[in-house]
Each structure stands twice: as structure tokens, then as C-alpha cells.
């Protein structure tokens, strides 16, 4: 047992951090909300060039043969910098679905080459026991229509009713007005789809959940860094606010959330790929449920420490909180992982 990043992974982390950090120092992340896709495209091609987008694409399809842990390292860095790229949707969720659920080889090769793929969200399918069942309000029984992490020209990927990853042209469609301003959703004509029930599809789901957890951990870490930096500099009552116990304890609670999310996420990054499927699902579910709730909590607390400026449009704090909420809700909603964990325990009795 070795629970630590390898030297290679630490190098990957450092390089990604530098590249993304430099890009966003030149052009702030928020500009992606209004620049017509320019920053997103520029950053994406950098990631493609560095072969970071193809990490989960097998070598035989042109990928560099990376692990889910590698992809999580990248996702965490992207979350920390609030990078406006469709990494979780394309490089993790779509790649895993194509790879494990028998997607067309050409699609994997295209993904490795930098073609964008967008996962069609199955939020109404993911909780087979939920009150909605597989029949959502968006269309006929078992259909999906919302593309996650959509960019212009992206093809859609969904699990078709026979349990095979299938790609779709996403020609038309309309922007969806959700909460995240940096990661886009688009509504298309519904296509038929199935809940992830087979082992392969469940593996892909576990990997998507873990990828989201990694991004969420990064978001929380960035929120913590912003808050502690501010708490050191901002003075009230003639002292730095970070010397007040109330502020210190808010920051300490954030640190606990970040470090424990990180432990959970990297544990899941191994298990979701390598462990037997039931264990993979269990651990990935815990990562998604925990990191999602923790990231929302930390982003909220960070705003509290920032005070007035934290609730303004010009500060990134709300962009971070928005991205946290979207990823907390993605891939089946926030409740699905907890219900899965509960049912494991109840079945055990």
C-alpha cells in the first residue's frame, strides 16, 4: 500500500500548475464568461499539447497511457485555478465512458487528438430507486438532452439503452441558464439513454464521480488559499483579521475539509480504476458526496472571511462557489452517491 503521489505525478502537478497559473495570470478566468470561448479554447489547446487531455485514452488509441490519479492531479490543479475548461466532462467523464462502455475507437482517438466531447447528463437516470426513476421531465422515458462541459463543435456521449457508449452530433441546441458561469451546459434534442447499470458503465460512472471530486477539492483549496491570504492582510480593529480566533477557526475548518477531501479523492482515484467494481463504486460515491458538500461549505466560508468583497461580482469567490455547486450536482445529483452508500449498508444486513 502506498498512498502518495509518485515523483512523476508531483512533476505533472507542478507543470500543470505553472502552465495554468501563467495563462490565467495573463487572462483572468472570469473573462471566459463573456469572451465567446477564446480563453477556453486557448487553455484547452495548451492542455491538449501537453497530452493532459488524453490521459485516460489507452495507448492503442493514441493516448499517453495515464491513470485516473494522473487525471485527478490535473483536475485538482484546474479547480484550484478555477480554469474555465471542460476537463472533467471531456477528459474524465467522456473518456471513461468511451473507454469502458465500448465507445467507438475513433472517438477515443479523436479525444486523444484534442477533439471536444461532451457528456450528456443523466441526472434523471442515475438514481434508479429515486422518486423520479429513469423517467425524467426532460423527455420521453430514458432520454437525455443536456450536454455537460459543452464547447462549440463538441460531440455528445451518452450510454445508449443497450449499455454502450454512443456519440452524437450536437448540431443545434440552446444555452442552458444554470449556475456556473465558466462551465457550459447546452440543451439538445433528447436521445435515448440508460442508467449506468452494467459493470463497465458503472466503472465509467465511478471515474466521473472521482474526477468531479478532484475538481471540487481543487476549488476548495483555492478558496482556502484566497481566504487565508486575505485574513493575513486585511486589518480591522488594528490587527490582521486572521489573528481573531473566530476567523482562525473558520480557516481551520476549511483546512480540515480540504485535506480530508484530498485524502478521499486520491484514495478514490486509485480504487475507481483498479478495485473490484462494487468497491470502486462505493469509494467513488464517498468521494463525490464528501468533496461536493465540502467544497460548497468551504467556498461559502471563504466568502464569509472575505466579507463584503466576497459577495461582489468582481471577486472570483462567487464563480468558485458556482462551479462547486454545478459539479456537486452533476452526474446524477448530490443525493445519488449517498443513497448508493446507504443501500450497501442496508443490503449487508
Amino acid at each position: 500500500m502506498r498512498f502518495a503521489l509518485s515523483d512523476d505525478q508531483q512533476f505533472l502537478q507542478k507543470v500543470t500548475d505553472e502552465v495554468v497559473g501563467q495563462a490565467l495570470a495573463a487572462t483572468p478566468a472570469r473573462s471566459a464568461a463573456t469572451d465567446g470561448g477564446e480563453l477556453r479554447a486557448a487553455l484547452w489547446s495548451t492542455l491538449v499539447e501537453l497530452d493532459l487531455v488524453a490521459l485516460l485514452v489507452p495507448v492503442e488509441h493514441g493516448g499517453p497511457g495515464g491513470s485516473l490519479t494522473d487525471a485527478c492531479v490535473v483536475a485538482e490543479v484546474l479547480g484550484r485555478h478555477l480554469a474555465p475548461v471542460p476537463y472533467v466532462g471531456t477528459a474524465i467523464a467522456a473518456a471513461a465512458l468511451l473507454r469502458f462502455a465500448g465507445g467507438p475507437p475513433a472517438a477515443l482517438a479523436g479525444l486523444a487528438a484534442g477533439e471536444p466531447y461532451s457528456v450528456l447528463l443523466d441526472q434523471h437516470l442515475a438514481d434508479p430507486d429515486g422518486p423520479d426513476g429513469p423517467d425524467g421531465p426532460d423527455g420521453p422515458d430514458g432520454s437525455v438532452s443536456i450536454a455537460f462541459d459543452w464547447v462549440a463543435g463538441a460531440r455528445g456521449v451518452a450510454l445508449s439503452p443497450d449499455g454502450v457508449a454512443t456519440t452524437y452530433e450536437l448540431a443545434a441546441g440552446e444555452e442552458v441558464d444554470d449556475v456556473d458561469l465558466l462551465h457550459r451546459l447546452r440543451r439538445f434534442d433528447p436521445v435515448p439513454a440508460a442508467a449506468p447499470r452494467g459493470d463497465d458503465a458503472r466503472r465509467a460512472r465511478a471515474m466521473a464521480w472521482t474526477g468531479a471530486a478532484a475538481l471540487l477539492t481543487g476549488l476548495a483549496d483555492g478558496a482556502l488559499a484566497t481566504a487565508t491570504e486575505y485574513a493575513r492582510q486585511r486589518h480591522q480593529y488594528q490587527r490582521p483579521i486572521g489573528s481573531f480566533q473566530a476567523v482562525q477557526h473558520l480557516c481551520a475548518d476549511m483546512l480540515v475539509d480540504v485535506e480530508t477531501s484530498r485524502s478521499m479523492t486520491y484514495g478514490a482515484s486509485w480504487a475507481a480504476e483498479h478495485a473490484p467494481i462494487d468497491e470502486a463504486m462505493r469509494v467513488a460515491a464517498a468521494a463525490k458526496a464528501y468533496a461536493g458538500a465540502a467544497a460548497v461549505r468551504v467556498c461559502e466560508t471563504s466568502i464569509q472571511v472575505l466579507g463584503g468583497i466576497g459577495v461582489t461580482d468582481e471577486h472570483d469567490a462567487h464563480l468558485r462557489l458556482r462551479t462547486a455547486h454545478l459539479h456537486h450536482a452533476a452526474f446524477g445529483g448530490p443525493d445519488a452517491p449517498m443513497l448508493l452508500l446507504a443501500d450497501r449498508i442496508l443490503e449487508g444486513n
Partner: protein
Amino acid sequence: MDLRDSAEEARFRARLRTWLAENVPDESEPAVLAERWPYMRAFQERLYRAGWVALSYPTDVGGQGLGPMEEAILSEELGRANAPTLLPLGHLGRPLHRYGSEEQRRRYLRPLLAVEEIWCQGFSEPEAGSDLASLRTRAVREGEEWVIDGHKIWTSYGAFADYCLLLARTDPDAVRHRGISAFIVPLDTAGVTVRPIVLANGEEEFAEIFLDGVRIPAENMLGEPSDGWRIAMDVVNYERGAVETGYLPKFARYLSELGEVLTASGLGADRAARLRLGRVAAHLEVLRMHCLRTLSARVSGAPPGPESSVDKLLMTAVEQELMDLSIELVTDVGSPGRAEWFDRYLYGRAGSIYGGSAQVQRNILAERMLGLPRQQG
């Protein structure tokens, strides 16, 4: 204890209901401030003309000479009638009334209450948020004028205001909250620049005010020199009470909307959702009862004290819990209304920051209500 209306209160309520039934506009509140402001202002003018504004102010300044109970009934009935939100400016009349000279009261109070002149509050500064006493805006006496330089922030509806009740340091040698005075500043004076602040939810109801060599007549000081802190604390305590803010009816409306969301989504029978909804409903009842108690205490005429921090913390907690619930119930990405609920939720995060952060409110309660030893350093 008697929660029934007295005969007089019941008559007042009946009259008010009749009026509201005929006068609440059919079109609902615009989401964008630029349209919402005239909508709110027009309704409030209509309310004033009909005698429903400034209920608890004396008649000689344009009020109705009634009590806080009538204010509470007004707030309840406005909510029930789904009326436009009131401008949260009533608490600025209090210091004018209490500390103003005969001449100032005559000149300013009636136009304020009549919504003919809009007022705002210039307290916070970039370096003086929770720690208001560290404010740096200064006013220097030059002959028959005060010359004011400084930078105010978080001024509600500053972009729409005609006058600002402004705090500035007049005695640079006095420590902290001593040496602060209050001024009446016409915002069309040369040297004043107002710039809206855009909040995370797109709201522009706050503004910054820059003051660069702004000259106002000497008689525009409110109260005596160094009364500024006392005046500010009065305003802040009023502001913290839930009653005058119209939050209660708004929250009730939100909760009812969430009930509709639940019913529409088929989650109405789900016990988890019902428990959460019920918990928030209980908290809303608590807020209502606590406001009634606060109101009853005010019948004596005494201004609110440090106990108003309980009201403020309660109000914030209820708002944030309500908004958290909305985010829990409306989680399907892209589902209709999700973005609007999210905007309300974002706005709710500000509740524990403005008007003194939740941390400052707890300090006040610990030291001034519970008598715990002062924090050291």
C-alpha cells in the same frame, strides 16, 4: 400574552386589507433593479399618499402617530397581498427625528417619509467594515462649511439617493469611535461621485461614494460634534431588527414557492424533503414570533439595544437555511428556476456579512448581553 389584534388594530388591519386589495399592482416585481426601483418607488409613493407610510412617526413630521404594532400589521399584510417590496429606508428617518434640529426635522423628515427625497447611509468604508470605528473619511471645518474627503462603500440604493447620512471623523486626535460626527450630504454637491457595486447575483443595489473636497454648510451636521457613533449605533440597531425590513413576508413567499417546486417535481410525498421543508417552516414561525416579541418591547418607545443582534443572527440563519433548502431541492442542472433560486442563495450569503458580520454580532452578545470578559488584544 395576547396575540390577537386589539379592536383598534383589527380595524386598522381591515382598512389596510381593503386598500391593498385595490392598490397592489397586478404586474409582479421586475427582476432588474433599473426597472424594479421605479416600480418600488411608485408603490411606496402611493402608499404614502394613502397614509400607510411612517405609521409610527408623529403626525407633525408626516407620520401617522401610530405604534410599532401597526408597522408590524403593515408588514404582514403587504406580504399576504404579495405587494412590492418596501424601500428599506425607514430606519434613516429615526436619527433625523431623534437628533435633528427643529429646522432639520422640518426640512428633511417629511420629504424622506414621503419618498420625495431618497436617502442613503454612508457608514462603511473599504478599510472600515465590521470595525466601523476605524473610518477614515474626514470632515474639516472651514468657516461656515465642512470640507469632506473620503470613500464610502456598501451604501444601499446609493445610486438612487438624493441625500446621504454620512459619518466622518471631525476630531483627528480623538481615539476611534470618539471624534466621529454625522452629516447630511446632498449627493448633487460638487466632488461627490457615486458608483454602483455589482453583486455576485447581478444586483446593483449597493454603491460606493467617493467624496473629494465636498463642501457642505456647517448646519448640515446632525446632532452635536462627536455624536456620530451614537447616531450610527441607533441606526444599526434599527436596521438589525427584522420588522422594518419586510423580510418576513418575502421569506414566507419563497417557502410557499418551494412547496410548489416540490409538488411539481413529485417530491411532495418524500419524507426527506418534507422534513427539510418543515424545519424551515418552523424557523420561519420562530422568526415571526421573535419579531412580535421585539415589537412588543418597542411599544415602550425605547430604541433597540444589543439584543437586536439576536434578531440579526436569527434573520440571517433563517434566510440562509431557506436558501440552502432551495439549492437542495432544485438540484437538477438546468431545471427551470434554478438560476433564480441560486441568485437568491448568493444574496443570502451576504446576510451574515452586512450590517455587522455574524462574528461581530456574536461578540456583541457575548460581551454586552452575557457579560463575558472582554476579549484581550
